[in-house]
Each structure stands twice: as structure tokens, then as C-alpha cells.
């Protein structure tokens, strides 16, 4: 077995997870100006729901479909019934509301699923693909392809399509967008729906490779947040920051030891935060 190849494979898979979760956070942040700490809950909800439904005898496809719908309902419901009526509140308070929502989900999931981890079968079965002394499961390939592919799609959608630009405009200045005929509310709920869908997809693809439990949500949010923060909340940047984080984690794990992963990785995060904020002056506006 070739350790380097395997590290790259592992890094790609881990990076896809970072990106998958990061892009959803970026999307909601860029359209609704909210750092959604309940984002990872869509991952946990999907996983727990799919595992329970599949366990109850539903065919896997149906269980996954239903689970994704539940997760979508959560993501859009959070916006529609909780955040939207409070759109005028300060950003910090809205962040805390999403944290509260994450806590509530955690409380519900422990009641439904107990404390044991759950999982469900992979969608892409078959022997792993082997090359250059490494092995990659089919589900892992799907995770990498969809993770980076979908995230790139979202990035392109935001930067290059009319609907994407409307979404960005709705975020930057909802009042102006509304006066120009943009249905801001629909733009926002679309963002939450896409975000929820991405979290759910990440769950569907990743959980068969690991497991999920009641407290997976916040951990996944944090993972996405790290990627998003390093990218400077940029929909294109998060592709690279996610990939970089994944490779970094795999390489450190392989050659340095997992114990040093966090101190090094988060020192980098602090440095990146410093670098990114260098051009922001007091009051939050960018320097001309």
C-alpha cells in the first residue's frame, strides 16, 4: 500500500466533506447574512431519519428521499418561521438563534435515536477502485465528485447566473432588490433550501462511510465553518479551502500524527483570519 497515495485519497474525501458543508454555510451567509450554526443539523437530521426509516423497513431509496425532504423542511422552516420574522435583529443574535435551533435538534435526535450511532448502507456498492497503491471506495468517489462538483456548481450559479446574482443582490441590499422587482423572500428561501439540500446530500453520501448520532450536527457545522472561514466566505474559495483542509488533515495524520493536527490547523485558521481582515477597517466596511 502506498501511504502517500492513500493520504491523497483520504484527503480528497475529507476535503469533499469540508467543502460540502462549507458551501452551504457560505451560500446562506452570502444571501441572508446569517452564519447558520444549525447548518450541520441538516446532515444529522438526514442521517438519523434515513437510518431510522431504513431500519423500519423502508427501501433505501425511499428512506433517503424522505430523509432529505425532512431536512429541507427543517432548513426552510428555520428561515420561514424563526429567522425571517426577526430579519431586523442584529446579526450576532441571529447567529445565537441558529445555535439554539441546533441545540433543539440535538435534543430531539437523542430522544428519537438514543445515544448509539446509526448508519445505513452505501448507495454505490462494489469493490474499491485501486490505483498507485491506494484504494478508494465507490461511495468515496461519489462523495468527492459530487462534493466538489455540486459545490463548484453552486459557486458558478452564484457568480455567473442571473438567478445567482439576484440571490447575491438580495443579500447585499434587500431593499433595493425588492424595488427592482426581485422576490427577495423567494431568493432567501431558495438559499436555505439549497443549503439544506447540500447538508442532506453530504449526509447521504458520507454517513454510510462513517456513522451518525445525535450530536453529529454541531461537529459538522464546525467543520463547514472552518472551511468557509478560511475561504473568507467565498463560494469559489471554499472549494480550495475545503480541499486544502482535507489534504492537510490527511497528510498530518499520515506523517506527523493526529495529535498535532488541531494545534497546527487552527493556528493556520487564526493567521488566515488575520490576513483576510487586514483590509477591513473599523465599522466593517472594506477599505477602498
Amino acid at each position, binding site marked *: 500500500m502506498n501511504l502517500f497515495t492513500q493520504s491523497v485519497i483520504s484527503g480528497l474525501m475529507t476535503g469533499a466533506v469540508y467543502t460540502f458543508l462549507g458551501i452551504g454555510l457560505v451560500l446562506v451567509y452570502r444571501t441572508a447574512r446569517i452564519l447558520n450554526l444549525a447548518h450541520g443539523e441538516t446532515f444529522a437530521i438526514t442521517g438519523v431519519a434515513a437510518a431510522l426509516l431504513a431500519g423500519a423497513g423502508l427501501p433505501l431509496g425511499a428512506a433517503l428521499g424522505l430523509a432529505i425532504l425532512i431536512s429541507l423542511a427543517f432548513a426552510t422552516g428555520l428561515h420561514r418561521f424563526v429567522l425571517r420574522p426577526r430579519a431586523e435583529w442584529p446579526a450576532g443574535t441571529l447567529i445565537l438563534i441558529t445555535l439554539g435551533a441546533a441545540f433543539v435538534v440535538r435534543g430531539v435526535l437523542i430522544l428519537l435515536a438514543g445515544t448509539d450511532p*446509526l448508519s445505513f448502507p452505501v448507495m454505490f456498492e462494489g469493490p*474499491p477502485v485501486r490505483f498507485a497503491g491506494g484504494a478508494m471506495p465507490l461511495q468515496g468517489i461519489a462523495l468527492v465528485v459530487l462534493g466538489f462538483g455540486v459545490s463548484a456548481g453552486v459557486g458558478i450559479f452564484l457568480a455567473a447566473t442571473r438567478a445567482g446574482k439576484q440571490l447575491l443582490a438580495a443579500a447585499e441590499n434587500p431593499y433595493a432588490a425588492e424595488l427592482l422587482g426581485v422576490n427577495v423572500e423567494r431568493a432567501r428561501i431558495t438559499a436555505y433550501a439549497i443549503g439544506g439540500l447540500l447538508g442532506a446530500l453530504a449526509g447521504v453520501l458520507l454517513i454510510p462511510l462513517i456513522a451518525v448520532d445525535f*450530536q453529529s450536527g454541531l461537529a459538522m457545522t464546525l*467543520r463547514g465553518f472552518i472551511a468557509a472561514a478560511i475561504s473568507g466566505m467565498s463560494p469559489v474559495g471554499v472549494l480550495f479551502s475545503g480541499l486544502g483542509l482535507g489534504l492537510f488533515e490527511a497528510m498530518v495524520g499520515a506523517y506527523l500524527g493526529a495529535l498535532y493536527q488541531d494545534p497546527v490547523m487552527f493556528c493556520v485558521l487564526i493567521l488566515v483570519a488575520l490576513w483576510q481582515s487586514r483590509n477591513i477597517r473599523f465599522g466593517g466596511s472594506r477599505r477602498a
Partner: protein
Amino acid sequence: MRKFALARPAALAAAAVLLAPAATPAAAQEVWRIGEVAPLSGPAATVGTRLNKVTKMWVEEANAKGGIAGRKIELTTCNDENKPEKAVACARDMIEKGAVIIFGNALTASLRAIQPLVKSGPILLIPSPNVVPGADTYGFQVSPSDVDITEAIAEFLKANKIDKIGMVAATDASGEVGVASARKVFGDEKIELRLARIDLRATDASTQLARVAGSDIKVVYSSYTGGGAITVVKSFKNLGLAQPLIVSYGNISDAFVQLVKDVKPPRLLGTGVAGIVPEIVKDPGDRARSQAFLEAYAKRYAERPDMINLLGKAAVDVAEAILKTPNPKDYPAVKTFLESTPIPSVHTQRFSAKSHVGLDASSVIIVELKGETWVKADPVK
């Protein structure tokens, strides 16, 4: 300072609390107060809830029979959320309220925080292999220690003429203890150890496995418990590794089997006390008790008991023996009693004045998953 004008409201609230009907319990009949510190939420919730199920079952059964030595048991379970400060608050309160026994159904850091509190009693029962209480304390461990478990693995390797092992250990406390035991035991036994740590957040263990599971390695050991263990097993399968994989005692459960049944490595082994496979227990008494517990538990909770339940059972059996002594509150006497009397359980516990660990490596077996049940492991070729 009008922001802080809270004084009168606070006084009023306090008065309201004072005037509320004081719900002091009437001087009820004497009971055995027993405390349990267990993580029911937080990262170690799996362990805490499983041990708690056994403790609860024991209390129900004992009280249904009219209690022990004529007294009913009053169990207080305190959720420490796997935080030492909570564990300390829980344990201190239990001691204050006159708990005769405390079940330390918690993990390493919490247990290390509670231990000093029982310097002069009550008895602290510990079903965790990661903490070895000193023989001068009132702490008693009903599980084989992590060193014992590692020794059993070493025995197994030697019996199969294997002199190299690959090990994946988490960056948490169990991994830390596991690594220390492995270095010591495998070093003593001249078994080459190849080691990789894995972060708790990891969603893939393939680099770790790639590092430790070379073609020269005949057996891989994962000391990981819980969700992380599943990641290791699944990565193992994905890499298509052919070696037998040994998982730690915490994974010898139905829940784990359900999670890995589709992704089982060619051979999945595990560590555990023999009671988990009653058929191979030599002592007929131990065998009968194990069998009886497995059945009773399955009936009560409609699920198969696992290793952690079994260790919980060992703890409640010791507790029952203590309550049957003439004066369970005479802690020095109880300590002497435990140090001199074997306690029959799913495995007979033999504490001594030199060791407060009731079981040793001889009680540990290497099991293997066949179908959906764990049986004694076959040799490794």
C-alpha cells in the same frame, strides 16, 4: 447603573422560593442510598446509558423482591455529561447524602476526579478498564484493566505465532491509555507495535490503516469505541485489507454489529470478558450467572446485552454483596471484606489487599463475530 437594578427583584424571587411549600421528604423508612455518576448526554453518552440500564434493572429487581437486607434501594443517577466538574459535584452530593455505594459509571477524567473524594469511603465501583484504583483507596474496579486486555491480545498473538501488530488509537483518553498499555505490554512481550492515532473528528481512517497495516502485519487492533470505531471498520473494508481486525471491548455489542454487518472485514475479532460467550466460561457458577443475566437483560430491554452491560452487571453484583455485609456503612470493614472474599458474578471478582482490580487477563477472551453473534475466536493463520 439602572441596567443592573436587579436587587429587589432578586430578593423577591428568593423570597418566593423560600415561601414555596417546603417539600422535605417525610422521615421515610430506612433505605440504601446509592449513587450513580454516568454520562447520559455528551460524547460518552453511549457508555453511560448502557451502564445505567443495568443499574436501573438491578434496583427494580431488588426492590421488587423487597429490597436487600430488608431495605429498599434508592438510586440517584447523576448525569456528569462527561465533565469532571459535574462528576465531582454529583459525587460530593452523593457522599454528603450518605450514599453507601457510588457507581462510577463514567469515563477516565471524571473517574480520576471522583477517586480522591472517597478516601474514607464510601465504596466506589468502577466498570472502566482505563482507571486502576490504588489498593489503599475505596475504589474497586470490576473490569479487567486495559493492561490486562492488552495482555490477553498479546497472549493471543503469541499463541498464533504473530510478532507484529498494527494499532489505531483515538486521540481521546481511551486511546491514550490504550497506547500506554500497548507500548508496555507489547514491548515486554517483544511484539513489534506499529501505531497510528486518529482524530475524533476524522471521517476516514484509511491513512492510519495504510500506515499500520502493511503486508507484514498479520493483525490490526483498533482501541476505538463508538462512532469512530465504525469509521475504522468501514475504512478497513474499503481498503480491502485481509488481516483480522480486533476491536476493543466497548464495541462488542449488537448496535455495533448492526452498523458493520454489511462492511465486515474478512475476520472481525474483539476483546471482552468471557461472560459474553457463556458457553466458553469454565466455572459453572460464572457460566450460569452470565447466562441468566444475558437472558434477563434481553427480556427487560428487548435487546441483546453487550460487553458494557456485562461490566455493569459485575458492578451491581459487587454492590449487592456489599449491601449484604453486616454493616455496609462500615467502609473499612467492607474494604476488608472485598479484599478477602471472592464475589460471584458473571465472572467471579477477586480483589485483594494488593489490587483493587477484580478480574485479570485470564478472564479476557478474544471473540470473533460469526453471523451476528460473538463466539470464541478461531486461530489466525
